């Protein structure tokens, strides 16, 4: 019983980074920009959160810094993808590896590595404020995407940029906006990871969670509420690892650490095997739009 209660109570903290990251990826990809740079955005947000905390600001301001850092990296990504029309896969990979170098460099130069921080305090049931804010953010995103003019045009740009352009919505502007909003959410996800969960910075602290979030979005077929469910599922799996280790059951430690990645692979195979893999994918995902190239 104790095991179950502890497990369930520690799940949300692990689920929130996945949920926020998946949300950020969905917003970006709904505008047709393939976001493989999620891991990079999360790293930048994570280091910014730790840096702000160590500079002595409160946890909420630190999280705001994380989101801002995500926006900053978003500007770079938007310039590469929406501006200079670099291949989305290449640009995403550059972003991830560049962010690895950048965050490690910044943390080393400022001496932020391995410094523990106080972190976000729980308010109810051992859960912090962001746990309660995340479902609201999901609802807000669903509302914006489904019910507002901005959301409609953003989705139009992701489905058929030519048609959106003819209707008077500049695809490039919308892609910039989507990348910056997505960057803010991804930065927040990374910031939550360090400010609320690990409470420490080490190089590569995100540990592939950005990639898991990318897979989660495919699994959720670009629906925000399904992404939230998927995030809770992965939060459960991640929360299980320290719980199982604490019970003293003899499971090889490194095999236990593999489970999130194995689960992600299983989920990807499952969603592909169900067929119609391109069903909910924004039709223009990963393509460039140049008005002058219309035929």
């Amino acid at each position, binding site marked *: 019983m104790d095991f179950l209660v502890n497990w369930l109570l520690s799940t949300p903290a692990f689920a929130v980074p996945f949920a926020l990251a998946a949300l950020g990826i969905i917003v970006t990809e709904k505008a047709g920009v393939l976001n493989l740079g999620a891991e990079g955005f999360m790293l930048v947000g994570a280091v910014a959160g730790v840096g702000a905390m160590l500079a002595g600001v409160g946890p909420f301001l630190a999280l705001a810094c994380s989101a801002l850092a995500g926006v900053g990296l978003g500007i770079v990504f938007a310039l590469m993808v929406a501006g200079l029309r670099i291949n989305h896969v290449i640009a995403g990979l550059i972003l991830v590896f560049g962010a690895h170098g950048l965050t490690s460099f910044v943390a080393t130069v400022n001496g932020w590595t391995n410094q523990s921080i106080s972190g976000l305090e729980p308010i109810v049931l051992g859960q912090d404020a962001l746990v309660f804010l995340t479902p609201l953010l999901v609802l807000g995103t669903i509302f914006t995407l489904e019910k507002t003019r901005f959301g409609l045009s953003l989705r139009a740009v992701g489905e058929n940029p030519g048609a959106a352009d003819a209707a008077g919505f500049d695809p490039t502007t919308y892609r910039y906006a989507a990348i910056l909003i997505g960057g803010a959410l991804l930065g927040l996800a990374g910031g939550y990871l360090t400010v609320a969960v690990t409470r420490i910075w080490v190089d590569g602290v995100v540990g592939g969670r950005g990639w898991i979030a*990318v897979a989660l979005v495919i699994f959720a077929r670009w629906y925000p509420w399904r992404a939230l469910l998927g995030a809770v599922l992965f939060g459960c799996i991640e929360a299980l690892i320290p719980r199982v280790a604490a019970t003293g059951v003899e499971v090889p430690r490194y095999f236990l650490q593999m489970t999130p990645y194995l689960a992600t692979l299983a989920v990807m195979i499952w969603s592909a095997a169900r067929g119609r893999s391109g069903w909910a994918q924004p039709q223009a995902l990963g393509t460039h739009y140049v008005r002058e190239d219309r035929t």
Partner: protein
Amino acid sequence: MPDAAFQLSRAPVVAGPPGRRRPPRLVPVLERRQKVSDWERVSVYIGSLVFATLLSVLIIATFGVAPADLAREIGAVVFSSPRAFASVLAQTAPFAIAGLATAIAFRARFWNIGLEGQMIFGAICASVVALYDVGPEMVRLPLMALAAATGGMLWIAGPGALKLRLGVNEVITTLLLNYIAFNVLLHLLYGAWQDPVSRFPHTELFEDAEKLSPLGWQNLTWALPIVGVLTLVLWWIFSVSRVGYLIDVLRSNPQMAFAMGVPVTALSIGAILASGAVGGLTGFVISAGIEGRMTQDFFTGYLFSGILIAFLGRNHPLGVAFFAFFMAVLVLVGQSLQIFFQIPFALTQLIQALFIVCVAASEFFLTYRLHWRGAV
């Protein structure tokens, strides 16, 4: 009356007082270049490399290394002695083979982001042969290489099959398998394969018959000639043979290739498995040729370096060899800056990213001509 319509459209929309007229807002207009000569291609490409170099020098200068010091450092690392030059060549071999592994897959439109996983699994398979003394000593090394190539192929077979059968995105699957391979490696190094003497998390040293033997000049081993031969073989396959031509057709237009009767599936499977095999060999070259054992971080950084080298070398084996040398210089200079100027090594990684951004961005200026025009 077309003339009147023309007049109408040209008339100012709002005829404000003359003093209040703002200059028109400028918007970018992209014009696709109809013809780009080879000369323009080469000069823009070189221009982007020069630009990236200047930016890097500038960044390094802001952290307290004057360009003159940097030049002296590069000279010392590369040309100061035969020994220094040999060190650069020794580092070139693993970079070149990592770049080749990546380039093979990229040539066939398969984004192999799982080089580190293939290196780890290849090296694990080679270490099984070495640690359990499989086969007579005479053929131990070829057996290790074979095991490494098989291991790399096994590790890429899953993502390859998923991509070809179910259309699963290979970027994510190959990348996730890196984490899984790394955990398998840690399981072995902190368990059964831990060094029995020092208790450090690495295997015991391989025996002499299980290491690539020295060439006899400086500290170079047979790794360099092996990688050289592999480069030439791949150059022949891609630039001379029929298979290379068919892969080019496949890359430019898979649908048309299929319609023309090119064996698309067979070629894809071949290229994917070859990429995995070379990835496994990369792990073998490093563990048997450089470290002489399995360590827990022998693969670090090769994934991105491989992508960078393949990208800068345009997936061409000879280009890969050239940029592998360039990367070796960059990394060794980075290490020396870390020692003598306390510059974190992560800066080297940033500079790598800078190079790939500049070269990727130069494509844009080759494809389009940018005008600024007043908004209508």
